[in-house]
């Protein structure tokens, strides 16, 4: 009995104009979206590969530890073709700069090359489902009960000995199958497209995730269908049920999430201001402490400041001092011995502050998400993003890993003496005798320099590039024991765990609406109002 009803509902749906129009639009859009996003993914993957290779290469060209610049590239997730998330808007790598005192709290190297492109948005599969398929679901469900009542078919059906719950179940399952078929078609189309485009290697994780994404989409759409059928069984006319559903849809999908997100964005900006104020306080404190410390010593600040600003441009923006006399050297060593520990302490304080800020931000974002999880469409978007590893959480997770690595890296640098002395000297024609002797010492004896107080040096000649040519004489760098960075991989179980609550909410909504509809339909008056 139910099978009959399902079959009829299904056939009736696929022959209707609204279904055909929606499905056509869905197919066209999913093809366009997949093709463009695949191309984009390939570009980003290529950039990633290039970046990793060039970062490795750059490491080999760096002469000393204090110039070490680490770039940690983030591999783009193949699922971002289908759920774009924020991956395209954040950068592609985290940079730990040289003489690193700053822990990266955001990614750099903007992926979107054109900053003005931010005014356009991307239509990915997740939006395809939240927009087009949801509207299709509303179209299929809004007149499932009230429409049949208006045409008298419901009376005709109920004049037979088929129990009401079977009729209801048949309608629901029929609509579900009607929407599952085009959905599956779009998914398969997308997957095939990605499969057949070269240079995208896929693993089982990808297919599994696609399957899960499909199931979650179906779960979400089922929720919408049941809501639609419920509303259809409560209103007098099909028209009012359609209006009600569309009104709900507009308000719940666009208005409310926007308002909530704006509020949370404002809260986050408030938070940033706090952090900045605290940062300012800490910075001022540090400056004062430094000045205090210098006052007690024979340190001469003016011997450090360059006389001519032209140093800045020609030397590529790095301000270094020439140590053309022993007094200057002593001054320099004094400066280093005072400043370095204060700097380290300061770095830790800044890190703690920023970490606290990131945590609070994350808490605000999680709160927002939890609230928004009550709305089916935003809930679904979030589940999709979490599965595809392109949401804000994945960014946060990556940055946390980078922070852990940063600590390791700091320890490593400290051991290697990267926080030692740096100075610059001009070309051979202009060196003072003292400098000549100093340099000779550096080039002859790379590890023992002035009784171990100064540990590294850097050559600065006509152009910075030339310095690299002198590498064989000056390199102290040995990167074999550089700690490796392990990129966080999103396993299947982790993905599901984070999502568990959201999926439970979705299932709950399904059950709730079904139960409500069951009761509503059992008292429903099928007579046509003339």
């Amino acid at each position: 009995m139910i099978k009959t009803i399902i079959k009829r509902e299904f056939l009736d749906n696929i022959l209707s104009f609204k279904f055909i129009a929606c499905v056509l639009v869905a197919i066209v859009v999913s093809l366009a979206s997949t093709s463009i996003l695949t191309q984009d993914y390939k570009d980003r993957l290529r950039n990633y590969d290039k970046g990793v290779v060039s970062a490795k290469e750059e490491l080999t060209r760096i002469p000393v530890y204090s110039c070490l610049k680490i770039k940690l590239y983030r591999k783009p997730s193949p699922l971002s073709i289908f759920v774009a998330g924020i991956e395209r808007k954040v950068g592609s790598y985290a940079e730990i700069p040289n003489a690193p005192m700053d822990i990266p709290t955001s990614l750099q190297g903007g992926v979107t090359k054109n900053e003005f492109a931010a005014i356009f948005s991307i239509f990915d599969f997740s939006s395809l489902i939240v927009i087009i398929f949801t509207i299709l679901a509303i179209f299929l469900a809004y007149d499932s009960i009230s429409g049949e009542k208006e045409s008298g078919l419901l009376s005709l059906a109920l004049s037979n000995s088929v129990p009401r719950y079977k009729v209801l179940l048949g309608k629901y399952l029929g609509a579900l199958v009607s929407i599952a078929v085009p959905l599956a078609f779009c998914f398969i189309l997308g997957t095939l497209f990605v499969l057949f485009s070269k240079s995208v290697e896929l693993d089982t994780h990808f297919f599994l995730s696609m399957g899960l994404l499909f199931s979650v989409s179906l779960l979400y759409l089922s929720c919408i269908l049941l809501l639609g059928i419920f509303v259809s069984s409560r209103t007098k006319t099909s028209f009012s049920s359609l209006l009600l559903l569309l009104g709900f849809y507009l308000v719940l999908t666009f208005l409310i999430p926007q308002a909530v997100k704006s509020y949370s964005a404002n809260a986050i900006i408030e938070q940033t201001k706090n952090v900045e104020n605290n940062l300012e306080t800490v910075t001022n404190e540090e400056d004062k402490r430094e000045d205090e410390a210098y006052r007690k010593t024979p340190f001469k600040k003016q011997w450090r400041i360059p006389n001519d600003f032209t140093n800045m441009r020609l030397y590529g923006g790095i301000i270094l001092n020439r140590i053309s006399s022993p007094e200057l050297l002593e001054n320099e060593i004094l400066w280093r011995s005072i400043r370095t520990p204060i700097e380290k302490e300061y770095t830790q304080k800044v890190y703690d502050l920023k970490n606290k800020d990131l945590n609070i931000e994350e808490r605000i974002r999680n709160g927002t998400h939890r609230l928004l999880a009550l709305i089916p469409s935003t809930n679904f978007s979030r589940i999709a993003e979490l599965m595809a590893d392109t949401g804000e959480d994945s960014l946060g997770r990556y940055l946390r890993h980078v922070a852990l690595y940063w600590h390791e890296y700091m320890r490593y640098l400290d051991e290697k003496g990267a926080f030692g002395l740096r100075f610059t000297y001009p070309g051979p024609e202009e060196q003072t005798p003292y400098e000549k002797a100093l340099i000779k010492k550096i080039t002859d004896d790379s590890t023992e320099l002035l009784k171990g107080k100064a540990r590294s040096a850097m050559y600065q000649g006509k152009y910075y590039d030339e310095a690299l040519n002198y590498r064989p004489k000056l390199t102290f760098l040995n990167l074999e024991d550089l700690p490796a960075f392990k990129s966080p991989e999103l396993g299947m179980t982790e993905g599901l765990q984070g999502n568990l609550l959201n999926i439970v909410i979705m299932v709950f909504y399904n059950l709730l609406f079904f139960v409500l509809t069951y009761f509503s339909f059992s008292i429903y008056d099928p007579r046509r109002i003339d």
Partner: protein
Amino acid sequence: MLKILLRRQLVEDILTSRFFISLVLILSAVCVFSLVFTDHFQQSQDTYSKAMAQNDRNLQQFAKSPVGSLGSSMQSFLLKPKPELFISEAYEENIPQGFLYEPYNYSLQLLSPKEEVSGAQHYRSISKKENPADVFTYSPDLTFIVQVLLSFFALILAFGAVTAEKEKGTLGLIYSNPTKRAYFILAKYLSALFTVGISLLIGLILSLILLNVLSAVPFSSSLISSLSLFFLVSMIYLSVFILLGILCSVLSHRSKNSLVLCLLIWVFLVIVFPKTTGMLLTLKRFDVPTGEEIQQLAQKASFETEDRLTKQLPADWSRTNFEKYRHNELFLKMLFAYDKAHQDTLDYYLRKKISAVETTRRVNFLSPASLFEYSSSSVSGTGLIHFENLWTQIRRYENDFLSYVKNERSVLEKGSFFYLFSDTISDKPLDFNAIPKFEDKNPKSGKRLKDASPYIGLLVLYNLFLFAFVVYKFQTYDVR
């Protein structure tokens, strides 16, 4: 005859629960958005005034000692947050916020939304913290209310224009009298226009009041002129949707079909189409290099210029003994050209990015929703057009600033160029109050209307075309 039809239609449209519900929805949306906007606007203004205060501090230091504080004489020119943002936010927060101007090397650097500017202190930032916008963010502004909510409402009013009458049987009755067909359509159209116009007007007045009360935005004449222009543009946009609704009604025989057709068209034109065409930007022809690559290209251009021009210098010239050439005219010319080449490259790519976006926008002209979005942002002077205005104003300011300093303090007699070399400026202090200051001015309403005119023109064309089509189709409509 028309008056009779019109009066009846008006009564019907306004006394329905549809109108009341829509009005409530629109007014509550306005209220919610005002609250959200207020919060945000306050913060933006704070950030902006902090940045401007920093500019002033830098200028004061510069005034005290034009040579000594060269390094910190930079100013940041940002998009000034305007109350018109409530009318149309136009993604202003997502595009680059402005420029960093360093006069001593003529450099104008683009500031992206999450730029951290390290000035004298390392961690001072003047950015808006990055909160990457979700895919379908619509900014909470009046444009959204009109573009999405009111257009939907207009369709609801109009979709049953003809089919509902037919189903009630009254269409035949009306035509048994000597009524012109066009009058019938006109009555429906005018009544629907009036109804949405009233809702919009009430919404706008409410928003003006709320803005004044909540965020202390004064009733300035520029704001009122912006609101009036916005009202005009919205009415033209909504009229398109009323006509679309009537058209769908004329093309169907049952209200059900008409409604489905209307909704499908609405979803496509308002949501799907404007949001998918952005992807065209990823096409090869709109490719621009990354930020770092642009910097490298600019550097390369500078080096090439330097190499080209230093050939004219004496043979013993080298970068290390340039001190000897400080007063050499050729050398100074070369330095100027060096910086100019750098800046020209940056400008070239910035121009390219903007025109890529504008070209992509042209594809969206098919959708009245996009046309409305662009015209509303032009009329409010926000978004991309705000940025372009800023850029133009900055360029003018650059000239004013440099010629001021040159006139006041330059000791160089030779040459028509100006270069802030320590020997070319006298170290006497400047008068801080006389230094030209930069201000981001709102363009006049005449100019804003002119900017918006291509989009408005297209919308009007849309209207005329639809109206003609509706009247034509209705002539042969079966009224039984």
